[in-house]
């Protein structure tokens, strides 16, 4: 069964294009410098339309998660994480943690993570894996 995939809109296309280029693109306000997510063409803090797109560091920490023991048919048959990570730039996003056992012992809150990309046809999803070097 094919994975449920996003259908980009004009306001989010840059994010998905970035993922396809293996770049995690965030937006920030020119005026208040606040980074935000999910994408939108204005700053949710101050309402300014003067915003810019920039490549994020890809560094994050594990904020919270569940391990789904009843995976959706398109997600395979093994229990898997559904996580929210806190990006180094501030915003949080939902993702899956990959590259480690899908267990409470391996998935420790606040552990350092880094982005990795996985392609599903035309769409590339941003996933996260345990950081290789110790977090600075």
């Amino acid at each position, binding site marked *: 069964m094919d*994975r*449920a*995939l*996003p*259908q*980009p*809109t004009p306001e*989010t296309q840059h994010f*998905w294009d970035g993922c396809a280029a293996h770049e995690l693109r965030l937006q920030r306000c020119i005026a208040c410098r606040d980074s935000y*997510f*999910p994408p939108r063409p204005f700053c949710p803090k101050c309402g300014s339309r003067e915003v810019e797109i920039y490549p994020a560091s890809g560094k994050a920490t594990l*904020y*919270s*998660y*569940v*391990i*789904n*023991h*009843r*995976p*959706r048919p*398109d*997600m395979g048959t093994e*229990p*898997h994480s*559904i*996580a*929210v990570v806190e990006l180094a730039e501030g915003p*949080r*996003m*939902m*993702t*899956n943690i990959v590259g480690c056992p899908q267990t*409470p012992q391996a998935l420790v*809150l606040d552990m350092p993570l880094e982005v990795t990309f996985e392609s599903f046809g035309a*769409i590339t*999803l941003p996933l996260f894996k345990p950081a290789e070097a110790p977090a600075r």
Partner: protein
Amino acid sequence: MTPKSIAIVGAAETTKMGKIPDVSVIGLHADAALNALADAGLKATDIDGVATAGISPVELAHYLGITPTWADGTAVGGCSFMLHVRHAAAAIAEGLCTTVLITHGESGRSRVGAGGFGRSPSSLMGQFEMPFGVTSPPTMFTIPVLRYLKARGYTEEDLAQVAVVQREWAAKNPRASFKDPITIADVLGSPMIAWPFRMLMCCLVTDGGGALILTRADRARDFPQKPVYILGTGESVETPMVSQMEDFTTSRAFRVSGRKAFAEAGVTHADVDHLMIYDAFAHLPLYGLEDLGFCQPGEAAAFVRERHTAPGGKLPVNTNGGGLSYMHSGMYGMYALQESVRQMRGIAPAQIPGAKISVCHGVGGMFAASGTIIFTNEA
């Protein structure tokens, strides 16, 4: 709305509850509506305001033969009915209508005449949550919880304790789906759904419905049932995406809605005799106790463990057994409201003797929305 200026004069649930394979969604709305009309001694033609969620108020009005001068289709999930009560009170106070019918019906288990559960892949949820395998509430509503447990120093046992206490209340309710006592070990030993949530920490999936009828308090004395007055109301919304909640350890919508309701009611927490906190999952009563101000952050788990919310405790919570043990059709808020009304009428299966003030707090979506209604039986 002036406190006590609007009253509930009709309240009822569907004739059957639990598994109802022979009634469709709109049929459940109608069954609950007819029961509430009978409870109030009214006919459908006496109703001039309608509110509902799940189906449109147009479907409801036409199906029952109502010609309303006011309609509300606010649909923000399970607490929609708290918002309907609040909006109806304001509409009646403003003179937009005189007698409002609010209905809920859901074929959550049998799925008779029910719509699908899905989101457009171009919505924000469809783009930024669905691709990562979220299914239904058990994998979404639960996502903040590991952060919450760590921040508060709570444990899995603390989550399990909530389910254990609510089963004690359910044992007193003949209409509850699950009445047999359970232990913390039973909860932790039940099948894993989405770590750290076991099956007995998640709500039931059943069929059912309920309806309420509201009118001005000065008319309420002419109705057959003991009037239940609305003392204060609150509502708020936060985010459609649980991953974008401002703070995983507290619900902004809960705090805003609760504060508004208490301020309007002009009562303190010590005045409250009975509390309903929508419990789709075992963590919600803990968040609710803290965010409504009944407990300091970090004290809710001990408050439950020390049996303050249990039968015989000083703050009875979810006295019908809750979504965990009584019933949960999908949008449980209506059943919480029904239990508050029963407690205020003095006819609940697990009646709190002498209860005068009941707080009924609902959640919609995954911490997306909230509504709070404070009732009293004193005019």
